[in-house]
């Protein structure tokens, strides 16, 4: 109860703003670290402040921040609420920054739990939350595992085992110094193992992309030569209330401009400007722009015309798509078929005009990322930020080990940071220190009277 917790309080991706809530002793201090408004730290309770969320020198989002000082708050602790623009990427980034600066990700129901523990709500209310905590913990554990994906989870597990080997080796050198036959774990060996660890973590961050895609949204580009119906397809996809559009130029890292929800899938559409603002100049986005967008996107919706033969331009785009995740959308099925579709793959036939078969696009994307089996709930979203935050901490500890080695610290100090890494990796896959290390020690090394 002494740490400061943070979580996203609004449903993801739907709604024009999102709220990130922070509660705990250091809530105000931590937020002030990433908030451009310098008056915030000393601001009076229950006031609202304007400014930017900053990652170093980089502006992440333009926000309104509410400060509520204890005890007149929901949890009876200091609470800060950041009202951000609703984009998934942005919101997630803000949460990540908070976690990085000392917040812990709130467990499901934890704000309510604190409200109860601090005497803000009564037991009947709290017991309701209790069931929730119970049921949700199991789910969240499952999701944490799903989220990083079986493969990534086993990669982390392997990394951790390797690290345990190093640590056990250091320990055995310390606890059984008289055993000359046991290899001495040297700084050089630790160093080479660290490099390997670093590159594997990079790989894991990439591998976990699929999970992240599910929770943070898929960077999506709509491409195709002019006049194939990109604009009407987009409008059909967006519908009236299906999508929200944020337009805060220069404040986000990615050029995400619209977030689109199909079933449980979030598509972050990039560079839609060319498509949307085209009532006069019909679909100004053309082949050159398409080729550029393809590089940036996680998934590409490649639109072609049912009523035309594939042109040279179509084939150029198709060639570029070879190694990418893409779906070919054959639009205008309301017209006569002229397309030679035997050259196409991952095809969905739609009519944007008649709203025919549009839903199939979502299904295809899910199949593309093999996401069908993973349930999407708000929890996966949180655990994703959590894993990323932990992996960032791991990289920090790797740096600390390097620094320790560089500055000639003895191995017992360096090992403190190694153990940190080991514990952090354990946190990701839900394992903690127990007798594990000792088992390692005695199963790998032969010592004794």
């Amino acid at each position, binding site marked *: *109860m*002494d740490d400061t917790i943070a979580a996203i309080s609004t449903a993801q991706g739907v709604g024009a703003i999102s709220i990130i809530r922070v509660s705990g002793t250091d809530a105000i201090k931590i937020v002030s670290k990433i908030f451009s408004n310098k008056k915030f730290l000393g601001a009076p309770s229950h006031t609202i402040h304007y400014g930017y969320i900053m990652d170093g020198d980089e502006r992440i989002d333009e926000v309104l921040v509410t400060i509520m000082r204890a005890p007149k708050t929901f949890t009876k602790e200091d609470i800060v609420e950041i009202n951000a623009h609703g984009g998934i990427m942005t919101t997630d980034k803000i949460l990540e920054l908070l976690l990085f600066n000392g917040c812990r990700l709130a*467990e499901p129901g934890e704000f309510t*739990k604190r409200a*109860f*523990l601090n005497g803000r709500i009564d*037991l009947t209310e*709290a017991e309701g939350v*209790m*069931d929730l*905590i*119970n049921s949700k*913990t199991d789910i969240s554990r499952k999701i944490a595992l799903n989220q990083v994906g079986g493969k990534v989870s086993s990669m982390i597990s392997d990394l951790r085992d390797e690290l345990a080997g190093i640590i056990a080796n250091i*320990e055995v*050198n*310390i*606890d*059984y*110094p*008289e*055993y*000359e*036959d046991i290899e001495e774990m040297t700084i050089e060996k630790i160093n080479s193992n660290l490099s390997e660890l670093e590159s594997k973590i990079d790989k894991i961050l990439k591998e976990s992309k699929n999970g992240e895609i599910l929770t943070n949204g898929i960077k999506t580009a709509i491409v195709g030569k002019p006049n194939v119906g990109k604009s009407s397809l987009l409008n059909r996809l967006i519908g009236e209330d299906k999508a929200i559009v944020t337009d805060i130029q220069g404040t986000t890292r990615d050029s995400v401009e619209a977030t689109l929800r199909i079933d449980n899938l979030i598509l972050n559409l990039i560079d839609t400007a060319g498509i949307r603002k085209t009532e006069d100049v019909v679909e100004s986005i053309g082949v050159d722009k398409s080729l550029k967008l393809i590089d940036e996107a996680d998934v590409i919706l490649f639109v072609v015309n049912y009523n035309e033969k594939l042109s040279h331009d179509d084939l150029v785009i198709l060639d570029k798509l070879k190694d990418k995740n893409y779906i070919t959308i054959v639009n205008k099925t309301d017209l006569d078929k002229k397309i030679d579709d035997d050259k196409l793959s991952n095809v969905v036939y739609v009519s944007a005009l008649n709203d025919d078969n549009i839903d199939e696009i979502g299904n295809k994307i899910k199949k593309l990322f093999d996401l069908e089996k993973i349930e999407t709930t708000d929890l996966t979203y949180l655990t994703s930020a959590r894993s990323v935050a932990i992996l960032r901490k791991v990289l920090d500890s790797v740096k600390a080990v390097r620094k320790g080695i560089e*500055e*000639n*610290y*003895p*191995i*017992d*100090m360096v090992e*403190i940071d190694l153990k940190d890494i080991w514990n952090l990796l354990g946190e990701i896959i839900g394992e903690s220190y*127990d*007798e594990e*290390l*000792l*088992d390692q*020690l*005695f199963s790998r090394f*032969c*010592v*004794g*009277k």
Partner: protein
Amino acid sequence: MEYEVIVVGGGHAGCEAALACARKGHKTLLVTGNINNIADMPCNPSIGGSAKGIVVREIDALGGEMGNNADKSLLQIKMLNTAKGPAVRSLRAQADKITYPKNMLKTLESTDNLDIQEALVKDVLTPDNKVSGVLLEAGEVIKTKAVILTTGTYMNADIMVGDTRHREGPHGEKPSNYLSDNLAKKGFIIKRLKTGTPPRIAKDSIDFSEAKREDGDSVYHTFSFDNEPMYDIDKQVPCYLIYTNNETHKIIRDNLNKSSMYGGLSDIKGVGPRYCPSIEDKIVRFSDKERHQLFLEPESLYYDDIYLQGFSTSMPYDVQEKMVHSLPGLEKAKILKYAYAIEYDAIYPTQLKFNLETKLIENLFTAGQINGTSGYEEAACQGLMAGINACLKLEGKEPFILRRDEAYIGVLIDDLITKGIRDPYRLLTSRAEYRLLLRTDNADLRLREYGHKFGLVSDEKYESFLNKKENIEKAILEFKEKRLTPKNNDYLETLGTKLLKDGVSLYDLLRRPEIKVEDLTKFLDNEYDSEVLEQVSISAKYEGYINKSLREAEKLKHLENKKIPEDIDYDEMHNLASEAKQKLKEVRPLTIGQAMRISGVNPADISILTMYMKRG
């Protein structure tokens, strides 16, 4: 005759327990099966070792006897892990197996309020689940208010060699045949454990010419903070290192089924220590290793036995002969005592409170191997803690509990009663999360205060400790105030360190890895002794890491302050996972911090527990 405390067993735990109680002014009786066997070292002839050496320093800081007694009985001594960092340094000594017990007996006999009686205890009398006395095997009853059981490996002890098993304690001593069963009748869960010891060889039958000589350090050390060295550095007795070979391994493999543990006996129940495998275990488990290290260690100046460390076995005698003779330099070796394995009863340690009093019986304390530990040092520190706590209990005072960030002793006791044991428990540096704080050099700074408070450290010793503490603070201040400037660059160049552009304090200079504290003392106004300078050096060089450990420890303290009511009913918490519920009911943790360390209790269970507590 009536006593306040009766200590049952005269091993390392029993000696410390009896001394602590008597020195604290309580009328104490030490009951032992054989007075000549007091403070015996039935296994290796050494005191200390990694982590264990730090425990000996802690015992000394608290006013216990082991360190002092070891200083009087040294054959050789060295500081381990000097190159691996200050946190893991630890003293290890070869101690004379004749002198050590003799010195300890002398101390016991000259201590006021302490009687020693030769007898075996059959039962502890516990009407209304509270200690009232002990019943001896001879039928006599002795009344007492508190009992400390330090029975070592003697309860239902079986010595095992090859296919034979017979009821006997170590060294052919009488075992305790009734006590364990009587404890079981009171409701204690008894656990069968196993350990072993290697053969002893006649020194003059060994050819040492091919063995590698291992000497003690060429600088003086003492375990005790108060002692001057009592040995001659040039007269330390060497140990020797040899290796097993293919021949040895073949003999063991060919005869494996004759070992008690590998088929010789079919009724093995005891769980042996992971860290002390027998030589047959090593051959089986590490079959790809071509050789195993063995040490030839002298046992005493007064007799000829050499302890063959690393060669513990339960093979029959004839196979032991062959095995020993296959070793280099031991072709003609004469075995004076054969190796054996021993099975014995212990009580499962989660049945204890933090003060080492049993949860079932008031004023009944247990310490040492009976609690499932192994090793002289582990036993001694528990004896000391049980002794202090038995007295505090009789005096109606709060128990003395050391936290995990205060002492290895705290780590050990918390591990025992929170996690229980699978095999005999040995202290290892890896068991301590805050080992950077638990160093050999600062054991007095951590614990002397307590030792004095409980009346085990004399005012005189305490004065000298306070003096040292003051000097450390003074020295740190002086190092921080005194600055070197570019004018001193000539000198700094001779140290091979970066030259100065501005003034820098001595303290900051000391942070540089290449600079030793002695390099800077010439700039000081005051003189400090080496112990004080060592503290300055460690504090400057490792400040970042130490602060990190302190922060972690602070978190722990917070969790340890969250007390769980003693009468809490875990059955009422319907949301608890069943494994967690069972573990919590077994251990009955006192604090949330302790509850979190129980394996099988996960964070969700802790949430439920805290919520439930708020409700109560």
